């Protein structure tokens, strides 16, 4: 058996983490008092698979730890143990410990042994092994006599064909006891000429001596092959009766460093990431490729034998149109492979809310909707942290304490709603709470304190709320370990902006706040408006464009000399001369001879002056950072139909550049942009 198991590690970890998520959500349901046998079974199965897998891959510490969890779950499953809140809490804790262990093994770092020992004690405590449990922590080497077991193991002839390996079983047995004397019985072995190498004709008798081994432990080893072997387990002479747990523990501690070393060697830091794709998406893709091949072969006929005339040109056109359709569909199918349901990001919240509500002594109900909304995998991975931050924030600052809620005439239990849906080619995620809402006065006072707002400056409600996204802003009176360090919201906004999205907040005093995150469906493709400035072509994301208009001179107003604003209906919008900011030679500097494109990002509007509008097309976004670096005001580049490169403008970044530019010329206070 020289199969390199390492190649399966990535899958093992992936499946184990999935299993942990399943266990976690199952346990949370249990905690809410919904005792459902099927649910317990699901949790048990996940634990069992993790144990089995980790045993197979030699992650013994994980297997041992899971074993205790499994025992506990098994008792719950058999109805031997009541499902109670403390038990579920401990199991939830164990899930965390297990997750940490798996992370540590995957990254090749050290397992937090103390943490594991602590949890093991807790589980063992529940399992009624208090005596041993307390001593685990003390851990003093005490010499004890050992008893042993005689195990007779006679596997069925075709045991190998079911994928079980007797060597592995024996190895596992060996790891249980201090010494194992194994005698093999080859009697039933047929002559070599008749031997089928896939059959197993041996049987074994094993003397397990030393170590604290229970009959269950041994049965556990053979659990997978239970119905494929004859197994007898007899206790050896009981003269040396009691086996102290200390011995085993001591033993384990000695083994621990060694074990860790081996585990580290076999795993490498997980850099590669993989994706699980629904088979139907792959089938769809295969179908599309099939269609494409058919179209291609049809088109290739034109190049081979047909003579060109009016009718062939007509058919060629049809074929090309078909090719275009297929290409687009293929593109969409490929994009869909990267799409994953947002539940991957949502699933951690029940646990988070559960933990935090006990930390804060608040009663909170979490409602999640639209979990099946699909989102690009990269976006999904990066949106997790900002979401956690926002939910924590709603929980910490938004929802009031139960007393305060009752005083305010609301129900004692606060509600946090997490929803995801599509809106106009974007994904929208909302975090809504029915708490106290943002405190305008407090925000303004704080902002003035921090110098974010000048005295006497008048701001609209939305502008005030927007202040919480400024760097260094936090209104929490006490810095808690959850929020209130003032690094939160600006980081949230920055992360979301990096994904090409935006976040805004609406709030009503006494009724709660809503944080709305808008994200692009995918990071890879964008609907672009091509604009010409001098000899250059730039691309504006269509999604940010509000309107394009021809300039009427009477609507241009100059402010403080250098800044210009355009009056559009009843709004004044700053005019951004792109050629100035990007240092391009324009066709004309006369606003009347070009066009203004009014764009919006994060509630701010600007009118970009361009020479010409060139057309709209879907563009594939290429990163400038791969070979170069991030350039302010640009979100990437793309390749146009003629093979040349065009740069894509990042509207939010451009607004910042413009503000910086203005600040250099005439110092103006922040918030000078039309909202």
């Amino acid at each position: 058996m020289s199969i390199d198991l390492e190649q399966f590690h990535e899958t093992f970890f992936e499946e184990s983490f999935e299993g942990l998520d399943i266990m976690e959500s199952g346990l949370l349901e249990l905690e809410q008092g919904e005792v459902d046998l099927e649910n317990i079974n699901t949790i048990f199965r996940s634990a069992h698979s993790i144990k089995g897998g980790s045993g197979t891959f030699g992650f013994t510490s994980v297997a041992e730890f899971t074993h205790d969890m499994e025992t506990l779950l098994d008792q719950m499953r058999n109805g031997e143990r009541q499902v109670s809140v403390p038990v579920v809490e401990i199991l939830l804790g164990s899930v965390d410990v297990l997750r940490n262990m798996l992370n540590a093994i995957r990254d090749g770092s050290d397992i937090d042994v103390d943490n594991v020992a602590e949890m093991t004690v807790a589980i063992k405590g529940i399992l009624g092994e208090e005596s041993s449990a307390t001593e685990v922590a003390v851990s003093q080497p005490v010499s004890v006599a050992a008893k042993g077991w005689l195990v007779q193991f006679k596997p069925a002839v075709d045991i190998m064909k079911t994928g079980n390996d007797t060597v592995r079983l024996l190895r596992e047995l060996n790891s249980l006891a201090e010494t194992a004397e194994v005698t093999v019985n080859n009697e039933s072995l047929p002559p070599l000429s008749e031997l089928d190498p896939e059959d197993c004709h041996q049987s074994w008798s094993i003397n397990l001596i030393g170590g604290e081994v229970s009959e269950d432990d041994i049965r556990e080893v053979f659990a997978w092959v239970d119905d494929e072997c004859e197994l007898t387990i007899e206790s050896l002479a009981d003269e040396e009766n009691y086996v102290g747990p200390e011995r085993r523990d001591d033993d384990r501690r000695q083994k621990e460093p060694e074990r860790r070393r081996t585990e580290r060697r076999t795993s490498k830091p997980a850099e590669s990431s993989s994706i699980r794709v629904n088979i139907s998406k792959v089938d769809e893709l295969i179908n599309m490729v099939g269609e494409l091949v058919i179209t291609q072969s049809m088109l290739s006929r034109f190049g081979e034998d047909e003579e060109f005339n009016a009718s062939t040109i007509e058919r060629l056109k049809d074929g090309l149109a078909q090719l275009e359709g297929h290409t687009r569909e293929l593109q969409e199918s490929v994009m869909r492979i990267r799409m994953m349901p947002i539940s991957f990001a949502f699933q951690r919240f029940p646990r988070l809310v559960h933990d935090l509500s006990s930390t804060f002594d608040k009663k909170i109900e979490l409602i999640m909707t639209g979990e099946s909304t699909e989102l690009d995998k990269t976006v999904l991975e990066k949106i997790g942290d900002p979401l956690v931050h926002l939910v924590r924030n709603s929980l910490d600052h938004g929802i009031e304490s139960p007393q305060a809620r009752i005083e305010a005439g609301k129900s004692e239990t606060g509600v946090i709603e997490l929803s995801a849906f599509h809106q106009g080619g974007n994904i929208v995620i909302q975090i809504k709470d029915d708490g106290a809402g943002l405190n305008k006065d407090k925000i303004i006072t704080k902002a003035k304190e921090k110098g974010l707002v000048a005295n006497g400056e008048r701001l609209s409600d939305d502008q005030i709320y927007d202040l919480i996204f400024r760097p260094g802003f936090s209104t929490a009176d006490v810095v808690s370990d959850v929020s209130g360090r003032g690094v939160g919201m600006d980081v949230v906004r920055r992360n979301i902006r990096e994904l090409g999205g935006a976040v805004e907040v609406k709030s009503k005093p006494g009724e709660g706040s809503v944080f709305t995150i808008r994200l692009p469906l995918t990071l890879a493709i964008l609907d672009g408006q091509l604009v010409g400035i001098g000899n250059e072509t730039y691309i504006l994301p269509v999604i940010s464009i509000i309107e394009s208009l021809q300039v009427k001179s009477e609507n241009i107003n100059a402010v403080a000399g250098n800044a210009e604003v355009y009056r559009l209906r009843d709004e004044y919008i700053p005019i951004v001369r792109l050629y100035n900011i990007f240092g391009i030679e324009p066709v004309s500097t006369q606003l009347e001879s070009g066009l203004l494109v009014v764009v919006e990002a994060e509630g701010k509007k600007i009118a970009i002056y361009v020479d010409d509008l060139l057309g709209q097309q879907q563009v594939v976004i290429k990163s400038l950072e791969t070979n170069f670096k991030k350039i302010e005001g640009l979100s990437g580049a793309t390749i146009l139909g003629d093979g040349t490169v065009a740069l894509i403008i990042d509207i939010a970044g451009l607004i910042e550049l413009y503000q910086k530019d203005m600040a250099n010329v005439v110092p103006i206070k922040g918030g000078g942009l039309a909202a």
Partner: protein
Amino acid sequence: MTETAEEISAHDASNEFKELLTFFLAGEEYGVDILRVQEIKGWDSVTNIPNTPEYIRGVINIRGSIVPIIDMRLRFNLEKKEYDATTVVIVLNVVNDGKSDRTMGVVVDAVSDVYNVPIDDVKASPDFGTAVDTEFVTGLATIEEKMIIVLDIDHMLNAAELAVIDQISE
């Protein structure tokens, strides 16, 4: 490719050979490790990148990747020259410590030749005598009575990028 390059530098002390691609820049001949050369192509128009130093000419599309193009004359503060028929872009694979490799193009006056140089023959450069900042020079090699300046492209092109960051963050 990278591995081979690293292997070679690892065996610096031994009697191994290094293949150099040489090019001309303002009358002097420079060499780069040929294993780093991805391709050589004629000068074609580029897309300008706003707010970058003059020596970053812009970006081009090489089979779907966006590749920045750097003018070596401008990078080394040499006299500007109109691009002509011999002007070429050498597309290089740049290794950046700890980060993924990048592809970058450099504009040079003309390509010259490929030489096999014993690694020991590359002598450390004195602190003067060339227009190029010695910090980017691995050493000097003498081939057929000519001096060739061997460039440390990783250092040079990563430093070129750093310069941009400095300028913007000012």
